[in-house]
């Protein structure tokens, strides 16, 4: 098959793709336009991509101090990153091991355990806020100089988020591992590899696209989550970006400062977009192609 498309088809596909791109970009252009507006209007009245007298004032205000809390944007961002990376790492590390077991082994209780995983997967995080809140509230960590309440810390929020992310990681990775042909493992086993070597040297490298996708989705959840963190954290030093963004809407409910809010929203989205672009290489490369002939 040649890599060239006939021009007519190319143009048709381009028109389709452009239309979808326009639909996706429309609300984003709207936010960009609001964030540049110097008038800090409460309600926009016209559609302009670049409003008259566009300025970056809203951005500088947000970097200094997004809300009334004495916390800078950088501190908030650091908290969000720690939380998101921790949750993503924990869920794909534990998740891929369990997924491998479910995908490649036949054992007693396999079906029951899988059903229990998907049973928990069904549960929304809202549905576990109350018990996690009550239980983590009882754990006080006291190691020498380090002393904190588990519930009122990013560790507690991280645990709570991992409990909601792990079932999805297991399920999604299992779905992907199932699509990896077993011929490679058969070949390696005949060459004398034991199960752990099969996992580390054969299956895991082939699962990198799925690990990237799953880890990325867990990262997004951690980065944008606010229900748990909003319920758990009370110290402004622990607040996350998502919480502050919500804080900005809540604070001014009737007349949100749309320019500041839009600037903040775009700055929250930016690091996520960068991480995505970095990972895209792994997501795109189909590593199973050509391995089995």
């Amino acid at each position: 098959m040649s890599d060239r498309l006939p021009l007519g088809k190319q143009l048709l596909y381009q028109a389709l793709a452009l239309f979808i791109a326009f639909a996706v970009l429309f609300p984003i252009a709207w936010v960009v336009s609001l964030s540049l507006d110097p008038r800090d209007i409460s309600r926009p009245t016209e559609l302009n991509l670049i409003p008259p007298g566009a300025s970056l004032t809203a951005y500088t205000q947000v970097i200094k101090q997004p809300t009334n809390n004495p916390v800078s944007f950088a501190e908030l961002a650091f908290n969000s990153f720690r939380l998101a990376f921790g949750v993503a790492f924990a869920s794909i590390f534990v998740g891929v091991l369990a997924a491998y077991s479910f995908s490649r082994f036949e054992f007693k209780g396999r079906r029951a355990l899988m059903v229990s995983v998907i049973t928990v997967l069904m549960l929304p995080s809202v549905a576990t806020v109350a018990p996690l809140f009550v239980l983590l509230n009882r754990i006080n960590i006291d190691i020498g100089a380090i002393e904190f309440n588990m519930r009122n810390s990013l560790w507690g929020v991280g645990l709570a988020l991992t409990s909601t992310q792990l079932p999805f990681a297991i399920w999604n990775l299992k779905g992907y591992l199932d699509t990896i042909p077993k011929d490679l493992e058969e070949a390696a086993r005949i060459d004398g590899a034991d199960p752990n070597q099969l996992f580390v040297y054969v299956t895991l490298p082939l699962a990198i696209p799925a690990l990237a996708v799953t880890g990325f989705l867990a990262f997004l959840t951690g980065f944008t989550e606010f229900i748990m963190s909003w319920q758990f954290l009370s110290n402004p030093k622990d607040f996350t970006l998502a919480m502050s963004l919500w804080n900005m809407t809540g604070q001014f409910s009737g007349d949100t400062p749309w320019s500041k809010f839009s600037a903040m929203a775009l700055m929250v989205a930016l690091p996520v977009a960068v991480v995505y672009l970095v990972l895209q290489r792994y997501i795109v490369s189909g590593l199973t192609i050509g391995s089995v002939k």
Partner: protein
Amino acid sequence: MANTANDWQEAPSEAQTPFQRWLASTASARAAYGYLVPAFFVMGLITFYPLLFQVWMSFTDYGIANLRFDAPAPNLIGLKNYIDIFTGVLAQKVQNFSFWRLLAFNLFWTFSNVPIHVALGILIAVLLNVKGLWFKKVYRAIYILPIVLPTLVIATVWRNMFDQDSGAINLAMASIGQVFGVAPEVFRIRWMESIEPPLAWLLPGQALPLSYYAMLITNIWLGWPFMTIVATGALQSIPGDLYEAAAIDGASPTQQFFNITLPLIRPAMVPAAMYGIIMTFNLFNLIYMMSGGGPLRKTQIMVTTAYDLVNGQRLYGMAAAFCVIIFFVLLGLTLLTNRFTKATERYDV
């Protein structure tokens, strides 16, 4: 895991003790359990134990007075919370609450959303996978944006776009209408607030307010890119030779799509669709921040109601009971979809 390393493929040919034979015969099972240990430990501690605790909470009148760790334990009140929810006694505390209407709307919301997400997701993934398409990377980067943006941003921005006076939707429709000589006042649509169902002359008998349609549009915008990510990953693991062979045998692109692409991406799409159903059923942020369940609780879903019970009403025991009910509703939903799609079957090439 290390103890399972060396007995994987030992044949029981040489003289062995029964114990060694047992070791060899269970090597596979022990490896399987070994890989499960971390997940078992983590989930037991932070998932299953809190869930059991929640069940206990649901039989109590757990309230704000019982929150502190040194506070008195709540009273056991048996099934009262459940009875109040099902019989509508709860409506005395929470206005316009009706369990069965809530459940019906939540199901309709889910099954009017997910099929659109999956179909659009697969079609757009196939479009992006066309060989030789220009600007693929640009499109991929753009199409990911709806998942990249925090849902609370999306919800608030779309809420603003559906604003009656200055929302982008009404403004855009007015400027298009102007070209055809329609007065802009026609497009001052009250998307979130209007109670009476829209287009009553066109769709007689439907009872959903406009806010449902506004959120449907928003959720389609939000939902398909995830399906495209999953479908793209699966598409890229399909060997290109399959299509070449099919093309040589004279299969049309449509036949190739239905006989090669769809069956081969099914193992990845089925878990994604099930996940989508559950995510949409529990789509908290969008509903809570766009319509707030309004007007008159008509677009309230179960999780926003549960959150309202915790956050607004502070009836923790009642909320726990409500969450146990959510659990069983979701369990039924999952078992149904599971049976329908046979998702727990392993895919064998």
